[in-house]
């Protein structure tokens, strides 16, 4: 026992000196230290993630053999040709794009009053309440929320009941018989899908918008009022332009999340396909990974275009 203790005592100074030496070494050669820290995460993301993205790109330049239904590992543009020449495929892309734009606009309109109130008017306590109130539904299980909407939108569901109770069921009838957006019930129409999308991504719009609105200096608003602007003018001329970066950040979320989603269109379903569903179906039952890969390149391209447009419009200048 004592021998061990004394052995430990003799080892310790040595280990200590080694520790100090190493510390000094890393402090002096900070590049080496940096590399050592960066290596594991870089290796992981570099191989697993970037490697996968590269594999995706590669697969999209392969094509499936029509007769044997196997993927031919030879570079070709055949799959992309299929993607942009088949009218059905073009329809799917346009339908998804239209939905993403509609959802983004609706989210911006609904999010604004909430973000505006919590960022600029609420007392500190109320502000914390609102932040938690927005964050909780955002983090609540995605699938559970989608499922909840199926219950709400069902034919005998709560929304129908509520509208009938207040005598507005005629409005719903009219909406459902409207061509394009309607359907047999809200749970199987584009209108229902749109509502669910807006609900799901609303917090992603509120939070960046509130962050941007919080940074609007109170003095500018007072100055605007002092110079004789009505509240409405102040809103359009001062508040909105300053909130634009937040609006842009939020819209990137709502736009890209809608483009890539495949759960919502398949659970709250209208008959038409969406990009995400096509990707999922092509890799699964159809076994056509090249076409699935090519389809998933579409949202990447659309998001890149969207970011470029937003940048050109000056959405990120104030950041």
């Amino acid at each position: 026992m004592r021998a061990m203790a004394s052995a430990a005592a003799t080892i310790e100074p040595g280990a200590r000196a080694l520790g100090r030496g190493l510390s000094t070494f890393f402090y002096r050669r900070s590049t080496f230290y940096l590399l050592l820290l960066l290596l594991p995460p870089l290796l992981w993301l570099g191989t697993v993630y970037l490697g996968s993205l590269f594999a995706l790109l590669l697969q999209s330049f392969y094509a499936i053999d029509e007769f044997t239904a196997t993927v031919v590992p030879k570079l070709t543009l055949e799959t992309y040709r299929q993607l942009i020449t088949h009218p059905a495929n073009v329809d799917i892309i346009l339908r998804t794009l239209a939905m993403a734009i509609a959802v983004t606009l609706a989210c911006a309109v609904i999010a604004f009053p909430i973000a505006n109130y919590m960022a600029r008017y609420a007392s500190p306590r109320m502000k914390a309440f609102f932040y938690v109130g927005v964050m909780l539904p955002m983090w609540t299980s995605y699938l559970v929320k989608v499922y909840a909407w199926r219950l709400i939108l069902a034919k005998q569901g709560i929304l129908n009941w509520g509208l009938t109770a207040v005598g507005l069921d005629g409005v719903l009838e009219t909406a459902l018989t409207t061509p394009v957006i309607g359907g047999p019930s809200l749970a199987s129409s584009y209108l229902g899908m749109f509502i669910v999308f807006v609900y799901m991504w609303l917090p992603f719009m509120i939070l960046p918008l509130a962050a941007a609105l919080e940074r609007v200096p109170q003095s500018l608003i007072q100055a605007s009022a002092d110079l004789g602007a009505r509240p409405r003018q102040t809103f359009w001329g001062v508040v909105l332009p300053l909130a634009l970066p937040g609006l842009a950040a939020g819209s990137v979320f709502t736009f890209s999340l809608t483009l890539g989603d495949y759960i919502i269109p398949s659970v709250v379903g209208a008959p038409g396909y969406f990009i995400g569903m096509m990707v999922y179906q092509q890799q699964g039952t159809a076994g056509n990974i090249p076409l699935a890969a090519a389809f998933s390149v579409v949202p990447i391209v659309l998001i890149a275009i969207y970011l470029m447009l937003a940048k050109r419009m000056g959405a990120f200048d104030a950041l």
Partner: protein
Amino acid sequence: MRYRDWNGASTGQKLAAFAGLAFMHFPVLVIILYAFTTEDRTYEFPPPGLTLHWFEVAFAREDIWAALKLSLTVAAAATALALFLGTLAAFALVRSRFFGKDALTLLFILPIALPGIITGIALLSAIKLANLAPGFWTIVAGHATFCIVIVYNNVIARLRRLPKTWVEASMDLGADGVQTFRHVVLPQIATALLAGGMLAFALSFDEIIVTLFTAGHEKTLPIWFFNELFRPRERPITNVVAVVVIAVTLVPILLAYYLTRPKE
């Protein structure tokens, strides 16, 4: 009247804000309500009666327990991996400046910036090209990839607030790197690590979009749930599981919020 614009919100603005907040919580309440309904085929409202029967039925289902266990294991493994990789990345990038740092930061955020379906199909393409069998580890790999950024964000935010002089002082006083980390840095970032870990856990536990691509024949709880959505019988069981999922994910998220909330 003009003063109203910066002295307080109008009743209309207040009303709109609170209505929006209520709208966001309403579906969760519906889910909880329907876990107690006596009616198991349609989503009739109001429910004809209330019962605890479905909790009993769900409790006895082996497939639910198996899925729950798998999801918890996957989330634990993915969180551990993300904690390790995300913390290293945060330590590396917090104060350093070098060529390509912006590109590197982008690489860390990319997995959650791009839609999940792209991560999913990309991982699947790689799995197919590498002739791997999808299963437990491919799920973990997928989850860890997008959980890294959660840990990274939490830790780097805390490290930025940690004065560099503290570390230097500790070293000047004779502590080595390990001791400095153990007694100076770790106590400062512990809650950030915990918060990041819990958010990553909640994110992984609930993930479906990437998982459906990488799971092969494995059934995590979200996958079980997803399959159940297309089955018309015993629907309230799905609601019971939903209530459990809400509880399992919300507790860590609330804890994470309290651990990282700004202090006055």
